[in-house]
């Protein structure tokens, strides 16, 4: 049979953002796939070399749109390692609370996207409405719904306002009860199990060789998490588990994100109960002439999509010499899609992309 070429182009309902895949199809089955990134390119690494160390703090959060806080935490940690300072304990607990709420919000967005791609349109309406309660908490704490500009080299920008801890606990209780509703509607439904099992399988050896990280790696059987292996913020003092599943298909990748939401709720409750008193900021050099001694550092955090790393080089002046941003979707969006898509039906292309949680702004920067 002859093959024909089809663009799942940038204007499409079934892709996660502004991204394009060029498919070669024979009938209904994909034979070859070539991802085409670059529609969201802004030249971030060049922009960061032209601005001072403090002027970079407001623009860094715009690199990953659904989950912006790991970017701020990475940038702050890289500058702190080069300066040789540590944030105070209260700031570390507040950073943990902000990062975990951002993880829950991003996973809710993924559930909605994946359910919409297999035809269950009620679930995006529910999850995006529930995500709005978390955005209200962010507005109370930082002033902005989506981009926070809150984590700063040396600590955090502002202390917890009055009434924040009670309101946060109400939101957590509400989300925990809602997980039962989602079980009945989505996670235990016959349609989800029939469509998602056996699609896009990655086995354990291939996952490490191809560079898969994050929840996708834990769904293939490898127990690895930066929060336990290389602790940052307050994770070294809190008590939580790392769930692992062994199937490696789209069903397991969605179920492991549900298990992570349960663990995140546990972490936030512990942090809210045990938060210590004290200052929220460490003394940094004069912000008008912020000079960092020469050196280089590689720091990484566990974002909701995988391993997110920054490599920063400084040469003793007041602007960074080079900043390299390793987005978590660099491997998921390009190399893994080329390997997983051939052999599947056209109707499953969108489902595989949502279950891998490909985020195009991280690839293009």
């Amino acid at each position, binding site marked *: 049979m002859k093959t024909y070429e089809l663009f799942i182009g940038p204007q499409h309902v079934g892709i996660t953002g502004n991204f394009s895949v060029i498919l070669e199809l024979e009938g209904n089955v994909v034979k070859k796939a070539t991802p085409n*990134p*670059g529609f969201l*390119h802004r*030249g971030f*690494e*060049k*922009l960061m070399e*032209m601005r001072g160390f403090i002027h970079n703090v407001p623009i860094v959060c715009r690199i990953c749109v659904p989950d912006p806080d790991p970017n701020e935490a990475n940038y702050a940690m890289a500058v702190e*390692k080069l300066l*040789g300072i540590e944030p105070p304990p209260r700031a570390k607990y507040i950073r943990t609370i902000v990062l975990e709420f951002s993880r829950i919000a991003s996973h809710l967005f993924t559930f909605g996207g994946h359910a919409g791609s297999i035809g269950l349109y009620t679930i995006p309406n529910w999850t995006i409405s529930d995500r709005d309660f978390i955005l209200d908490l962010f507005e109370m704490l930082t002033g902005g719904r989506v981009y926070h500009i809150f984590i700063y080299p040396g600590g955090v920008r502002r202390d917890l306002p009055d009434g924040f801890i009670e309101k946060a606990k109400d939101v957590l209780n509400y989300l925990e009860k809602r997980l039962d509703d989602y079980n009945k509607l989505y996670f235990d439904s016959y349609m989800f199990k029939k469509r998602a099992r056996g699609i896009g399988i990655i086995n354990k050896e291939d996952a*490490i*060789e*191809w*560079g898969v*990280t994050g929840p996708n790696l834990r769904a293939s059987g*490898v127990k*690895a998490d930066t929060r336990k*292996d*290389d602790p940052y913020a307050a994770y070294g003092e809190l008590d939580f588990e790392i769930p692992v599943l062994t199937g490696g298909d789209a069903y397991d990748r969605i179920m492991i994100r549900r298990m992570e939401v349960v663990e995140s709720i546990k972490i936030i409750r512990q942090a809210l109960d045990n938060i210590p008193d004290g200052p929220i900021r460490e003394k940094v050099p004069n912000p008008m002439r912020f000079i960092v001694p020469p*050196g*280089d*550092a*590689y720091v*990484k955090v566990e974002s909701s999509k995988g*391993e997110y*790393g920054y*490599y920063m*080089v400084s040469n003793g002046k007041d602007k960074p*010499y*080079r900043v*390299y941003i*390793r987005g978590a979707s*660099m*491997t998921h969006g*390009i*190399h893994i899609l080329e390997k997983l898509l051939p052999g599947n039906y056209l109707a499953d292309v969108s489902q595989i992309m949502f279950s891998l949680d490909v985020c195009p702004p991280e690839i*293009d920067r």
Partner: protein
Amino acid sequence: MVEGVVELIKGNFSDVEIVIPEHQEKRVHISVEKEKVKEIAKFLKDNGFRHLSFITCVDWIDEGKFELVYGLYSYEEKIVVLIKTKIDRDNPKQETLLPLWDQAQTYEREIHEMFGVYFDGNPGLTPFILEDWEGIPPMRKDFDSRKYSQITYDSEAK
């Protein structure tokens, strides 16, 4: 442990420079010549460092050199090793890591497009992010982004 990794590398390669950076735990930085990179990467991959995190490039224009940085990670030891090497800026060439890791294609394509480094043995160095770009590679230090933006985007065509 970090000392174990340092012993392992020193025992098998005698002329590398090993630095353990201060204030950073679980990191080892080694500097080698460009011909030894593939050998050391293969040795580390056989000893547990199976995850390739990233490959990137830094432009040291005053010295006239590019510096390539490779990041490797081991899930058993939980340590990140950075391999750094310097190549000539006027004729930048390096051997490819494709035979060891298939996914190095993404990073090598990006460095070829943004800095102009050529990787011997890599057949697929096609444009990755930019489309129809004809000037010098944009991440080099002698490309002035502000001036280009002012000329192209701030005024209408005559």
